[in-house]
């Protein structure tokens, strides 16, 4: 599955690219998207806040048609103060939207990573592999 929880941590592996310009991979030509119910675990979502790149998450969610995330990132240094309503919204965005078929494209080198049956092909061509 490609869910936003993972896409928000993924960057382009090509040797010509480097963080942060190779992040986030953009969704393109998404042909099949599914909603999968996942058990809500507020503790897990709270603990995950510090790992998120908020602006990237909003952008990527938008590419998948979800605009529920507020502009202001939650304060991950005070996870206990984040409302349950917002945690549920984040939970849904991170874990319940699944890209089945489509593409992820590197914003730097424009390598197209095909997603087929929910599995992205991250294999690199010889000239893209770091020495």
């Amino acid at each position, binding site marked *: *599955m*490609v*869910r936003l*929880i*993972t896409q928000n*941590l*993924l*960057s*382009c*592996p090509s040797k010509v690219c480097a*963080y942060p310009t190779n*992040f986030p991979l953009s969704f393109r030509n*998404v*042909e*099949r*998207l*599914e*909603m*999968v*119910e996942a058990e809500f*675990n507020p*503790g*897990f979502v709270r*603990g*995950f806040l510090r*790992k998120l*790149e908020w602006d990237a998450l909003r952008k990527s969610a938008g590419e998948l*048609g979800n605009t529920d995330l507020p502009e202001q990132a939650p304060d991950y240094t005070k996870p206990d103060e984040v409302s349950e309503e917002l945690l549920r919204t984040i939970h849904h965005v991170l*874990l319940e939207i*699944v890209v089945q078929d489509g593409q992820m494209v590197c914003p730097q080198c424009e390598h197209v990573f095909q997603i087929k*049956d*929910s*599995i*992205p*092909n*991250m*294999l*690199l061509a*010889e000239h893209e*592999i*770091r*020495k």
Partner: protein
Amino acid sequence: MSGNRPEHIAPPEVFYNATEAHKYSNNSRIQNIQAEMTYRCLELLDLPPSDEDEDIARPSYLLDIGAGSGLSGEILTEEGHEWVGMDVSGGMLEVALEREVEGDLFLADIGQGIPFRAGAFDGAISVSVLQWLCNADSTSHSPAQRLLRFFTDLFGCLSKGSRAVFQFYPESDEQVTFIMNYATKAGFGGGLCVDYPNSSKKKKFYLILFAGQPAVGAKPQVVPQGLGVEGSDRVAYEKKRERTKTRSGKRKNVKDVDWILKKKELYRARGKADVPRDSKYTARSRKARF
């Protein structure tokens, strides 16, 4: 023994073609051993306790290196974790899809690197994969280059103070030294934990790597002693094993290929076309977007 090593025959994406992948995943003896080793990897990962219960590991975000047919991933899900699985064998990943595993799968060659941001994962496990990196390779890159790239990226994408645990089948002491050398170069500490070293049947190798030491004041990372060895650690460890076993009450039976085939027959009987492709999420409630 070494003549039968699959990693000497062909690279994994070639060796585990669709037929081999099903054969491998369908073998109940292999499945049981894989499940047992996955639980042991999780135990050796030593994840911090959850807020609610100190005997239960905190639900974490884990990397399954060489996730294969998804058997280990099913156990990670069952234990409450989210996970990402990487594998270079499309045949194996196809089996994982048929099993309806709940992790995020990637077709990727770990020898090319691991494309995740710094500190992404709370830990990594790997069952029966590491020896592949030391051998047959479809690219012109040497095992040394591949190992160094792999460990360097792994070190980067693990959160500080976390662990990676690899069950593997080393060929020789030299191979262990070779692997450890590159892990150390990449910044890892750690070492080898051998369970039941005196039993030819039960003997298992686990490489435990520390992605840095935890914060000052926390207990330092130490490689635990293997099971079935005389020593002071053993009693404490066995006790912990008892406890972790009760986490989900009883261990569920992992879905085997027979189960999948039965399910597929059922779907066919109901007249569903294109069964393997579309049956993935039928176990869960869902709604299609497009």
